[in-house]
């Protein structure tokens, strides 16, 4: 079970290889990668505005603790062989990777469900905050989306 918080980029393939190693009991590998978009909704949601930079702040210590709890919960709910969570912090730019979740299982359904569960809980429970720099004007802290807390009710 891998958890990392880092500024550097990650390689999806290297992370899969690291977690898969030479195991041959794996039938299904699901990855989720979140990336920085170059447009964001304006504060009143009326229009999309161009974004030039994204700053990611987190709560060192609590982040790792929360991610470990979320990961342990996923492993207790589904027959997951192993999983990886990597989240970047600091300054990121449009097109950059933000987050990577990998789940390994014998069968696809568990791998898909556990990956989606990890992302839903990470989005609502892990102490990360995004600040967007629009092309013009001051940087803004991103508002939490109601759909993200609603996503939890599914589990």
């Amino acid at each position, binding site marked *: 079970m891998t958890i990392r918080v880092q500024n550097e980029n990650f390689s999806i393939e290297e992370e899969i290889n690291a977690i898969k190693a030479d195991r041959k009991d794996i039938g299904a590998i699901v990855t989720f990668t*979140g990336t920085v978009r170059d447009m964001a909704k304006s504060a009143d949601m009326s229009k999309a505005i161009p974004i030039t930079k994204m700053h*990611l*702040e*987190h*709560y060192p*210590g*609590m982040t790792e*603790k*929360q991610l470990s709890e979320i990961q342990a919960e996923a492993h207790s709910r589904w027959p997951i062989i192993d999983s990886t969570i990597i*989240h970047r912090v600091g300054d990121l730019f449009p097109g950059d990777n*933000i*987050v990577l979740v990998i789940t390994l299982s014998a069968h696809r359904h568990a791998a898909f469900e556990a990956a989606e569960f990890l*992302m839903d809980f*990470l*989005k*609502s*429970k*892990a*102490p*990360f*905050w*995004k*600040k967007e720099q629009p092309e013009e004007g001051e940087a803004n*802290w*991103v*508002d*939490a*989306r109601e759909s*993200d807390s609603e996503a939890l009710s599914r589990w």
Partner: protein
Amino acid sequence: MKLLYFAWVREKIGKSEETVELPASVSTIEELITWLESRGPEFQAAFENKDTINAAIDQAHVPHQTALNGASEVAFFPPVTGG
């Protein structure tokens, strides 16, 4: 007790952390917020919409009614937006 502030809570208060001696009367997160507000307009601004501020005791999310109970680290921050 160590207090930590993140994101726009940190920006409004103007610092990321501090160590405070609490009066004996402060025993819950709610009471801690009220006491912080008495310390100046920057705290009043940060806690203007208290209900939207998340609290964590020793790195675990807690509701505002929670007793501090000898906590060593309390953090305040906006709803999280990672991922």
